[in-house]
Every structure is written in C-alpha cells, then in structure tokens.
C-alpha cells in the first residue's frame, strides 16, 4: 500500500523498491545522470566518484557517454547524437576534463558543449577546505559568471595593418537571465547578498546595461541584499579579506578572472567544483582542472574536484542528505591528513584516497 508518491526527477524515472516490513515498501526514485569521463585522468577520477556514490547509496545511475566532436551533415562540428540525446533526456550531467587538441580542426569541446546546451551560467562555489592549508582560511563565496557573451563573443577584426578590434557584446536578455539565476541561487541556498561586479565607470554603456538589468532583477528579490562593486575594488578586497564576499555575479571576462582568483584562494583547480547551468533545465557539473596526461592511468590523480562537483550536482537535484554525507566524508579525509594524494601533500594512491572516503561514508550510516 502506498501513501504518497512524489515525483522528484524531471527525466526518465526508474525506481528501486525495498521491502521494509509487511506493511511498507519504500520506493526510491533513481535518477539517471549522463557521465562524461573525459580524457587523461578523467576515467580514473570518474570511477572514483562512482565508487563513492555507490558506497553512499546515492539514488543515481550513470549513463556513460563520449563527447569527442564529429562532423555532422553540412560539415559543421557537433557532439555525437547519442551524447546529446542522453543529456537532453537526463538533464543532469557530470563531466571530467576534456583535452583540447590543437590541430584537430574543431573548436574546443567545452565551447561546443556550451553552445549545444546554451550553458549560460558558470557557478563556482569556493569554500576553504579545512586540512588543505592556504594563506586564506575564511573563504565562503560563489562566483556566477555569464558564460555566453561578453568579451568572449569571438568577434574580432583586423581594421588596418597593426590595428585590431575585439568586440565585447552585452545584451539585455543575457544580463537579465544571469542576474535572475544569481538571485534564485541566493534564495535556494540561503545566501545573504549578491554583488554585481562591473567596470561601468569606463565601459559606460556595456557594463552600464549589465548593471541596470541586475538592479531591475534585484527589485523582485528584496530578501537578498544587492550591492555593486568595481572590478578593481573587488580584486583589492578579495586578496586582503575574502570573508566580505558572498555571491558575485558578473559578465564573462571578469568572471573568468575572478573565478580562477577565488579558486587560487582555496587551493587551486584540483579542489574546486564547478557547474554550468543551461536553458531548458540542463545542468552539467565538471571539474575544471586539466587532463594531466603525465599521471594518467597511474592511480595518482586527485578526484576531489570532480567529487565536489558531483556533490554540487546532488544539491542541485535536491538530494541534500547524500550531498552532505559525501562532502563531510571527503573533508574529513582531507582534514585527517593520513591518506592524501600527492597534490594535496601526501603520497597515497587515488584508490586509497577513494577507499578512505567510501569507508567514512559507510560508517556514517
């Protein structure tokens, strides 16, 4: 007999059932997530994440796909149709590092993914990790970067020999969309303030437009504090006292620089999670470090970045309990400092690190 049935997933729904007693059977919704292992250390860290999720009994089943670009009809490069179909069906994806080949003729894979799924927001929460010491100990902020336009529109011209012009494009629609996402994120994650980062004193019209849209959206979210700050002031204050900042929302280039700056504050790309939110409910979470071909296949990689991105994914899906469990296990392992991979200062293998986290997760149950 069933008292309640709640649909949580937006994609394909499958479920497992567990007989608890004669009267009750618990149905758990299992959501399917597209997994893109990537290149280099990608496959081993993906395996690590899958192991940890299994140990945590997270209701996720993985659908592995490859996104190496293929030439579609008409000669345009695109991602394989199986990958695209899987993403559109599941809506949620987890991606490892992809290598950008130099002379393959096709654009960067990340760019292709971005365009295919209209991934307009790049979200990077940066929280200081206890046990991984950096000079900055009280970082807890989120950078939300507009990912489709701005300085990265790719529109450049050679005007005359020796004079080049790059165009920075800012549109009302994209600015409003990113501002709305930032405020929604603030509300959903109980954050207190959103700061718009700009250089409107110099780029009056473009950053001015961005700022105006942010202000307009802020009107509808009176419960969240809205401030504006110049890019240089943010940089200056960030390296002196990062605890002042909560959520930062900004156009593409500033977002690129600031998100990497904040990653540097907490320890680098090896421990920073990242998520890309697209239109139509698509969200791809990824690790932003490189493929590290020199240590690929040697069981030396650090899966923390991909793991924390997967935790971010769980939170996005509303599975806060499992997210907290896995995150705590990961931080405890790092804080303990007994089983750390080489980049964190230890000499353990990736499998040992993973096993330690799995053990902690199982102990928590």
């Amino acid at each position, binding site marked *: 007999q069933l008292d309640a049935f709640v649909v949580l997933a937006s994609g394909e729904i499958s479920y497992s059932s567990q007989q608890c007693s004669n009267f009750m059977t618990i149905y758990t919704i299992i959501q399917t997530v597209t997994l893109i292992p990537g290149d280099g250390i990608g496959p081993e860290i993906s395996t690590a994440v899958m192991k940890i999720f299994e140990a945590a009994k997270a209701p996720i089943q993985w659908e592995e796909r490859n996104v190496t670009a293929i030439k579609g009809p008409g000669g345009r490069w695109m991602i394989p149709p199986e990958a695209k179909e899987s993403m559109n069906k599941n809506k949620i994806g987890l991606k490892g590092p992809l290598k950008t080949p130099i002379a393959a003729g096709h654009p960067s894979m990340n760019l292709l993914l971005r365009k295919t799924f209209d991934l307009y927001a790049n979200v990077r929460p940066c929280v200081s990790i206890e046990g991984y010491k950096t000079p900055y100990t009280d970082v807890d902020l989120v950078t939300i970067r507009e990912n489709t336009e701005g300085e990265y529109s790719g529109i450049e011209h050679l005007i005359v020999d*020796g004079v*080049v012009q790059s165009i920075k494009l800012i549109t009302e629609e994209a600015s409003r969309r990113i501002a709305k996402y930032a405020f929604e994120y603030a509300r959903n994650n109980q954050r207190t303030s959103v700061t718009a980062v700009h*250089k409107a004193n110099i780029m009056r*019209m473009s950053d001015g437009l961005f700022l105006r849209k942010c202000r307009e959206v802020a009107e509808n979210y009176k419960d969240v504090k809205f401030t504006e700050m110049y890019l*240089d002031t943010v940089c*200056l204050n960030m390296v002196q006292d990062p605890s002042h900042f909560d959520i930062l929302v900004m156009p593409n280039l500033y977002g690129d620089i600031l998100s990497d700056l904040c990653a540097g504050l907490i320890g680098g790309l090896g421990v920073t999670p990242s998520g890309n939110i697209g239109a139509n409910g698509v969200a791809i979470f990824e690790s932003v470090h490189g493929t590290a071909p020199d240590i690929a296949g040697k069981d030396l990689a650090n899966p923390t970045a991909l793991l924390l991105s997967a935790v971010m994914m769980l939170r996005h899906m509303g599975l806060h309990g499992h997210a907290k469990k896995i995150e705590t296990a990961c931080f405890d392992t790092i804080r303990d400092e007994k089983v750390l991979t080489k980049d964190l200062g230890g000499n353990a293998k990736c499998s040992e690190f993973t096993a330690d986290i799995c053990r902690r997760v199982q102990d928590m149950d």
Partner: protein
Amino acid sequence: KHTTIMMATLTKALKPILGMQFGNTAKPPPAKYGGRHTVTLIPGDGIGPELLNHVRELFRFSCVPVDFEVVHVNSASTSEDDINNAIMAIRRNGVALKGNVETNHTMPPNHKSRNNLLRTSLDLYANMMHCQSLPGVQTRHKNIDIIIIRENTEGEYSSLEHESVSGVVESLKIITRNNSLRIADYAFRLARDKGRRRVTAVHKANIMKLGDGLFLQCCKEVASGYPDIEFDSMIVDNTTMQLVSKPHQFDVMVMPNLYGNVVSNVCAGLVGGPGLVPGANYGRDYAVFETATRNTGKSIANRNIANPTAMLLASCLMLDHLKLHDYANMIRGAILTTMNETRLHTVDIGGQGTTSEVVQSIMRIIQSGGPLTTEI
C-alpha cells in the same frame, strides 16, 4: 621676459619635431624661476585633497624646491573645461601629482571618465607600479617584489561603445601594433635599467586570438632584442591564481589595460592595501604621479584616517623624476622608518594612528636628520 616665455613655449611646441626622443621616458622640464620647479596639482575627490595638502605641508617643511599650481576638476560638472584646463596646465609644467577624480557612472555615456581623458590626451602610455612588501606591515605573503607595467591608453578603455540594436551593446577593445611595441619596449628597458631578470606578458590570447595575439606577438618581437632578459607569458586567469598562491615567481609583468587593472589591484592587496603603493604614469613628454590603485576613498574622506603613504611615496617618485634625488631619498627614508621601525600605522594596515600623526612622525624624522628644515 615676454620674449623668454614665448621662446620657451615655442621650443616646447617644436620639441616633437626638433628633439625627437623616441622611446625615452619623459624628460623633465627645465627648472624655471631660479631653480624651483612648478608642478601641477589636481586635488580630485574623496581623500585626494587632504592627502595632497599633507604632501604640500611636508614639502614646505623640508624646503623642497617645488611650487604647486593647483587646478581643480569638478567631477559633477558636465562640461569638459575643467579637465581641459588641467591638461593644459600639465602640458605647461610637464609633471603633475593628482588625486582620483570620481566618475559618476549614472551619467550618460558621452560624459567620459576625467582620469581616462587625462591619460589619453597626454598620451601617458605606461603605467608603472612597483609592489614591494614592507617589513613593518602584516600580510599573508612576505617579500614580494613585482613591477607591473600596464598599457595605459588603449585596450578596453577606448570608450568606444554603441547600441546598434535596442538591448544589444557593443564595446570595442582596440589593440594596435604601435602601442604594444611601445609598452613592451618600455617594460624591457625598465627591466634592464633596474637589473631585473624576467619579463612576463599577461594576456588572454587563447580566446582573443587577434587582439591579445597581436599584443603577445609584439612582446615577443621586442624580447628578441633583449637576449639578456628572460621572457615568458601567462594567461590572465592563471596569473591571478598564481599571484594568490605563489607570488614570488613574478618579476616584471607587462600587459594591456584591463588586465593591468586587475593584476595591479591584486598585487596591491597582497602587499598590504591601497594605502601603501604609489603609481606613476609616463608618457614621452609628460609624467603624472598618483596612488597606484586610484581609489577615491569617499567613505574615509575628511576623517583623518586615510593612509598617506601611497601619496607621499608617489610624490617621492615625482621628485626622482625631477632629478631631486636627495630630497626624494630623505623623504622616502623617513616614510619607511615610520612604517617599519616606529611602526606608526593607520587603520587600514591594522594600526591606530591618524593621518596627521603619521605625517608629523615623518617630519620629526626628517628634522632629526639635519638642519635643512623650517619650523614645524
């Protein structure tokens, strides 16, 4: 007297044609009126006026042979007369010391930033900032010594924007071969003069292939002419990440305008904040000195808590430029003694001293150094 002044003006006007000194840093104007230099002073807004008053007080006390011609620029006024007067005064005197003029960004787009207008009209193409850790100041990283050279006139600061379709704005970033070669040359010459070993170009050429690609190419060309100096390049986002974790790997850095803004603020934050670092803007014929991070400091204005160090060190840079090295070293020594030995700090670096207390302490140290001063 009239003929002398006319000849001086004529010579100055013909200088670009007669004495072509391509690629040199600005030549200081000849000292006029009996060995005393005249320098343009632009108070600006916020903490500018009070800090520049302290500079004047200190100079008077130390008997520095510099007279200031004060030119006010009203940031609220829409006409460009004020800033044009300031520019003319700087053309006349050759050197200026300025506070930041606030830009109200809610004004319409044709109201350009006054500071930017000044830099582009006078073609102050190189912004130099020397970030050094001071032993007396508590920071997370110690022993930082980085020189940042930032292209000051073009790039993203070209102020060329238009709204071609409603709701879509385009902003142009201009990179030219001439300016890139010029700034790269400035960087390498400075590195050589100061005995530095490496120059790093900061760019984003993987994305802005033509624009930053041209900048990088120009840097490489200039680097080939300086085989004694190492040259490498780094992408701007990686640069900021490296700066906060391993800042000691950097020596001299050269970059276009916007990245210069970001990197110089990050470095200023690393060595202790905006109140400590002086900045200099050099052109072929003119030089303007100010604080490196160009903050207006509205919230701390007129409360006697602003840190005078940055502005005072900027005035020392100006004295060096005028070849008044003895005075420059005397004042700089006194400032550093107050900072590192006496440890009299203002609020921004964790102390409790007021601006006037710090200045008084500097004056006392100067007085104890010899009989050169007037009464306090």
